[in-house]
């Protein structure tokens, strides 16, 4: 499968494999299914009355990052959207944490 292509990556290594189109052929159905799964989750939350929640707002901000063109760093931008941007250590482990999104002072 595409072994004749001999694609060079940024490191100029010896990878000989699929190009972008061939990779799309491999992953499209998987990506499509994941996207529909997310749509279903968001619909389900709405159907159950919705949720005013900082995690959901962060999620929608992350979805906007997905739609922005190129740059090859969507994963980094999505992760950064969810991240605590502050610099100082916190006083107590009970202050927040490990919900997956930074409340940023708007936590209920």
């Amino acid at each position, binding site marked *: 499968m595409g072994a004749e292509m001999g694609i060079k*990556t940024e490191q100029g290594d010896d990878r000989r494999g699929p190009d972008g189109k061939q990779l799309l052929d491999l992953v499209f159905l998987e990506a499509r299914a994941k996207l529909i799964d997310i749509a279903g989750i968001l619909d389900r939350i709405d159907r159950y009355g919705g949720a005013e929640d900082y995690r959901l707002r962060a999620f929608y901000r992350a979805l906007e990052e997905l739609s922005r063109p190129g740059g090859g760093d969507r994963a980094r931008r999505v992760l950064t959207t*969810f991240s605590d941007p502050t610099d100082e250590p916190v006083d107590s482990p009970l202050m927040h*944490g490990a919900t997956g999104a930074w409340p940023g002072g708007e936590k209920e």
Partner: protein
Amino acid sequence: MVSRTTDDYLAMVTAGCRAVCEPAFWAGYDRKSVDGFYDYFCQLTDYEPKRAAKFALPHFSWLCLNPKEAEDTGLADDVLALIPQFLDRPNVLGIGEIGLNKNTRNELSVLEKHIDLAARHDQLILVHTPHLEDKLKGTRLIVDAILGDKRIEPARVIIDHVEEHTAPLVLDKGFWAGITLYPESKCTSARAVDMLEMYGRERVWLNCACDWGVSDPLAVPKTALEMRKRGHSEETIDRVLYANPRRFLLQSPRFAAVFGDEGMIFPTVPSGKRSLSPTRDSF
């Protein structure tokens, strides 16, 4: 791996894993006394290597008080005082996995004491970074704390659980970066290979989460399949999954005593079908 059954050791050996490196981690509950840590360090350095040896799998361990238990600073001091007596045991690689969990002041203080311990005893360091929204901030704090101790060479430190937003921070400062694979919730094999392609492979190693939660001791060998599907050569796969962790770990005299001549001792393992260093993680 104290949280796993021997079925995992058998599966790992069958899949080509050449060694297991187990960091000290959380017991599933906060230990109440220093005696609990003494018993745990005995388990990591005495019984567990014997259990793995039944499967011809060399077992190494890292010692520390996990950041998740660092809020009790009195207990932390007692555990730090206990560690040196275990450092000469033949399977001990160094201090780890130290680091931060919720990025608290107490965690940072205990991290600095572990860094000092490693410097005084000339030990390698394995670092846990927080998961989820705390990772970016925690990684910055950790990098600053280690660089703040001039006795520590970044090339003797591996900062683990990097993701796309933290790998460059770690690699740009000369540290090794660990990519930890999870079957769900965190980094997948596909994203791990993405990071290898984006950020280089010179100072990166891959490891498996093998903890109390859903985790897969074969995640590293399975990542070889992902690399193969994308057309990476067998030589590249072997370099990332085997030669890289070996190169880092050979800085430990105790690892070198077992693996210094590995290429000659085990010539029957096909290139690209061996791996090193599944680790376990607790959060």
